[in-house]
């Protein structure tokens, strides 16, 4: 476990199969690099993500979790991501109440935005890494 820790933060991502997961595949085929601690899980729609999944991931050792889907209004199922937005915004507020802000992120990435996907996850990875390094020094 300790060895794993030194590699860097582990991030679990829930990605909508119509937008963000497609973007992550495109990032792969374009040979773009993003940190290896990021595990993407394909879900049929971002609104499939029960906040229980996020809480389970965080409490069982993930350093961060992101939920990503199509831009609002572009959902394959017409309105799925509007529900995601409400649910995840509320979950973030709950994490804030538990002083765990920054552990959960919500991204909108369309199928064409491979660059944006890589930028978003890399920024999140770096933030979590810095936070952890600062924690180690103290």
């Amino acid at each position, binding site marked *: *476990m300790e060895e794993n820790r030194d590699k860097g933060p582990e991030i679990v991502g829930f990605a909508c199969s119509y937008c963000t997961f497609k973007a992550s595949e495109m990032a792969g085929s374009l040979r773009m690099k993003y940190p290896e601690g990021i595990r993407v899980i394909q879900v049929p729609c971002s609104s499939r993500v029960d*906040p*229980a999944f996020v*809480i*389970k991931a965080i*409490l*069982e*050792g993930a350093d961060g979790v*992101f939920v990503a889907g199509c831009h*609002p*209004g572009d959902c394959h199922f017409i*309105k799925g991501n*509007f*529900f995601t*937005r*409400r*649910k*995840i*915004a*509320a*979950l*973030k*507020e*709950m994490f*804030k*109440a*538990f*002083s*765990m802000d920054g552990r959960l*992120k*919500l*991204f*909108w990435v369309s199928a064409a935005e491979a660059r944006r996907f890589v930028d*978003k996850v890399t920024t*999140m990875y770096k933030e979590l890494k810095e936070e952890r390094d600062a924690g180690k020094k103290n």
Partner: protein
Amino acid sequence: MQGKRIDREKLEGALKGFLKEPGQLIFGFGRKGGLVTHRMYRDDLHGFSMFNPYFSINGATLFRRVFSKDVKVLLMLRPCEIRSIVELIKLNQIEPEGITTLSIDCPGTVSLGAERDGLPDDPFEAKDYMVEHRDGMRWACTVCRERRGVVGDLGIRMAGDKSLWAFPYTEKGKAFLATIEVPEEEFKGGFLLGEDKKDAEPFATDMGTFSSELSRCILCKNCRDMCPICYCIDCLFNGDEYLPKGDALLNKIIRKGTDDLPEGRELFHMVRLYHVSQTCVGCGACEEACPQKIPLTKYFKGISERLQGMFSYMSGRDVKEIIPYLTFKEDELKDAED
């Protein structure tokens, strides 16, 4: 506000009249020995307890999954119980057609499990009893958000001049109030129970405190079973996906490292915290059911009020309001995205 000035006898008379019709029931409280219990009345009002300052279970838990359209039920309960029933109607767990809800001003309650002397059964006596026994009041009641009987179809309120008043809020309430033969008048005085002030500071804690308070938890899941609005038959925590057992548990510990047992206490409570966040009425039934006396209400009430505040929602206020997670606006929460 138009209402009727009533008293105990008149109200009991109307309730007895309601029971005379076939297929009509009353759900309320009844005295049993020195204690109080929820009771369903069919033909008489034997041992009926109209006003009592005791809380053991939220009545909505007992009334859940009643879908009968032929039987009419009059529910005479505390505001928190009526609010839970309103939420359960929204979640399609109670059929609203046959029920009339009647909320009573509640001056606060003591735990039924606590030591007590005497049993007040009059609203004003109950109020005095609660003033005297302020230390014994349940924590959930000291921070209650709505103790006034202003929810449901009909409200029984205590006026400042020690008279009882009934106010109808819906057509069903008006229909029941019409059976009390008292002229309707305009209410001008003040009420004994005022509006509750809200906490200015939003609830905040941290994982360490939460975790150490939960170290007493034995994962009996009584809090879930006694929660009026935690109604899923297929609860996530019934199988072993979320709370692994046997080999799966060993695997998990090998993968994750040293771990406290029983495994998954924080997970269970945090998932429950989120799942009931918009519908929690803060009745404190979870804490009442906890054999380890963990201060659960503090977390459930704090988190639910914070999360309901995001959508200007209050659980159980109105049957017409939609639960925030089941609806959306296209143009909102601009800062939700990172």
